[in-house]
């Protein structure tokens, strides 16, 4: 949907179908259908990592590309995790291969060994230029092996997290 900066109308200005369609129809459609992408986890195997440096969780399925109008983008993720060492799992989002939070990421949470815990975040990303941008979910561990349950059949952890992005302004 194409967004056009709303015009300032002049007195006695002729309102044509073309102008109305651009200013009203197209702009309302752009608001109704903003650039958006989402992925629900439903995979044949759970995700795991032992990396102590941030890496993509899945550079295909959890890499979402949208073409924006230069506005802010909201990113949201929720999923169930476990860590074999009971230590911290760190999460971040990379926009065009640059992590938005830096350092230890958006969040760092210890997750027990014999249990699973939901980790979730919502992030507003500002300052993006108009055009295509790719958002990748990334993670690392402090120690241990992190597991992200992806609906692959682990008993009592057959859950389906979600990763989504949407331009919101």
């Amino acid at each position: 949907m194409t967004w056009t900066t709303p015009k300032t109308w002049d007195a006695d200005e002729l309102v044509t179908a073309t102008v109305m369609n651009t200013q009203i129809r197209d702009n309302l459609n752009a608001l109704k259908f903003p650039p958006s992408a989402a992925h629900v986890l439903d995979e044949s195997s759970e995700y795991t990592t032992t990396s102590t440096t941030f890496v993509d969780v899945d550079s295909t399925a959890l890499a979402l590309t949208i073409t924006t109008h230069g506005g802010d983008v909201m990113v949201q993720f929720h999923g169930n995790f476990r860590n074999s060492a009971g230590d911290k799992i760190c999460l971040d989002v990379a926009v065009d291969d640059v992590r938005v939070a830096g350092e230890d990421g958006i969040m760092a949470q210890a997750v027990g060994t014999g249990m699973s815990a939901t980790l979730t975040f919502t992030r507003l990303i500002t300052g993006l230029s108009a055009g295509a941008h790719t958002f990748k979910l990334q993670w690392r561990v402090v120690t241990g092996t992190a597991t992200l349950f992806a609906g692959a059949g682990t008993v009592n952890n057959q859950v389906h997290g979600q990763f989504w992005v949407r331009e919101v302004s």
Partner: protein
Amino acid sequence: MAIIELVFDRAAVNPDRLHEDLAAALGAAFIGVSAGRGKVRVHVLDSLPAADRDRIGLLVAAHDPSQLTAAQQAEADRAALLERLRKPWAEWTAKDKDDVLRLMAERLLDDH
């Protein structure tokens, strides 16, 4: 130094064991291993020599996910022991009592 990843097709993985084996073989250049959707990704420093990169493929191919790490085996043994002790007190042997005391002592030491 940059980090690169080598990708292999591999469905079943014991990530803890594979991590241990790769760390032992590659040393400080090894960062970690990730898995999912039928792929194994090995994360290493780009300074890793080509010969070592070739070894990674062989190690991943030879990986047996049924082989446990020492920690995994210890946890499996602990779970089996606890299961064995689920019986009336009157049936406990001297060895059973020693075993539960050992488990409790290990837990106390771990917590402190």
